[in-house]
């Protein structure tokens, strides 16, 4: 067996530690932007899919099937390498002035995850008795307002467990952003390994940090569910 000297000190202080921290910062940013964006977009797609207007329903179905059924990595590559050829010049200029790698990764993560979230929310909506919509419409709320005030708040409560899954997937999937040069946690762990040859330490550190991130998301959602959404049950 190869003799290997573990050296945890290189990842708990100094240059490599700073690299990992800067990577974590970008992973957190990407996850936060992704979760908020995917949730909002998922809500919109779910409501479109429930619309009475057929073309909107079709549009939502095409969106869902397309983005659920193609690999996330391809979608990331598409937004990074391919999108500028079809996007308007103004959008391209704006993207080039921002952090383009980050933006491409965020867009891909948001769109990909929103398709799954939309389906989860839609099944949540379908589980709300139709009488709730009747009660809301009878009070004088429009379809969209009924959704906003009465149906979605109930549907989202039911959807919390699958939503947590999607949020966890998104946080972990953000590691794929390294492939287009986003300097997030996995990218930095890779860097540490390349420079120090301490692959075990570097990737163990990354693993522990991802684990902590996931557990934090689960904990926060649980807290939100208990304290804000269902105060009457606690």
């Amino acid at each position, binding site marked *: 067996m190869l003799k290997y000297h573990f050296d945890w000190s290189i990842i708990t202080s100094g240059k490599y530690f700073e690299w990992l921290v800067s990577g974590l910062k970008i992973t957190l940013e990407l996850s936060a932007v992704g979760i908020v964006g995917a949730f909002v977009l998922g809500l919109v797609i779910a409501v479109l899919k429930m619309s009475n207007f057929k073309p909107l329903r079709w549009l939502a179905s095409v969106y869902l099937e397309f983005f659920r059924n193609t690999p996330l990595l391809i979608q990331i590559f598409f937004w990074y390498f391919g999108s500028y050829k079809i996007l308007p010049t103004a959008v391209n200029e704006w993207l080039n002035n921002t952090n383009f790698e980050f933006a491409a990764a965020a867009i891909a993560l948001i769109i990909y995850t929103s398709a799954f979230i939309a389906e989860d929310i839609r099944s949540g909506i379908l589980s709300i008795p139709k009488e709730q919509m009747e*009660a*809301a419409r009878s*009070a004088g709320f429009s379809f969209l*307002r009924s959704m906003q005030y009465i149906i979605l708040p*109930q549907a989202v409560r039911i959807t919390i467990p699958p939503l947590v899954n999607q949020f966890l997937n998104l946080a972990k999937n953000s590691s794929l952003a390294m492939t287009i040069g986003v300097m997030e946690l996995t990218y930095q762990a890779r860097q540490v390994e390349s420079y120090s040859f301490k692959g075990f330490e570097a990737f163990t550190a990354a693993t522990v940090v991802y684990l902590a991130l996931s557990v934090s998301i689960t904990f926060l959602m649980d807290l939100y569910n208990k304290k804000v959404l269902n105060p*009457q049950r606690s």
Partner: protein
Amino acid sequence: MIQFQNVHKWFKTLHVLNDVNLHVKQGEVVVVCGPSGSGKSTLIRTINKLEPINEGHLTVDGMDLLSKKTDLNRLRAEVGFVFQQFNLYPHLSVLSNITLAPTKIRKTPKKEAEEQAMQLLERVGLAMKRDAYPTQLSGGQQQRVAIARALAMKPRIMLFDEPTSALDPEMIGEVLQVMQDLAKTGMTMVVVTHEMGFAREVADRVVFMDHGVILEEAQPEEFFLNPQHDRAKQFLKQLLSPMH
């Protein structure tokens, strides 16, 4: 206030409303009864267009329900609807159930809406339940909150679709009492119910339906003492002694 003229409605091939003519005047309390499947629930649900009609004319509070120009949401805001299954919003407290529509649709300031909600809760005897959630209430309490919720919009018409049918017998009285008090204020009411005691005491008119047709329309005493139609006689007999 509510005018049906030659109204027809079909569910696929089933003729659920067959040439219905009915005029409900302002301040009138009309009770609609009939065996199950007679179309009485459909009738009341057409008044706020939860069910659209296929033929004929229907005007409610001066608004033509078949006209595309009629703002349905405005109409529904003027017409309170009370369901058999209460249909309170389970994610909101009793108080929020009542204030939601006034604050969002009528744009009533929150504080004012809450004061009005408390007055309504006192009226239905549930002021102490303001912070409870619907699942913590009994059926009778839920239905009284549902009535308060409908009244919070200051409707010009109140519709009740079998409001006591889902209740345990000992809770029926408290709901009927609230409805009777409401009738005394001069509210225009259409009530689908089998509570013949309520019909006798509170209704100005009783409408008897079967197979989508209005078979009889009479003053309560007249209807109960001297029903004209055979189906009505049979229906009343069954209501009074269901075992035979």
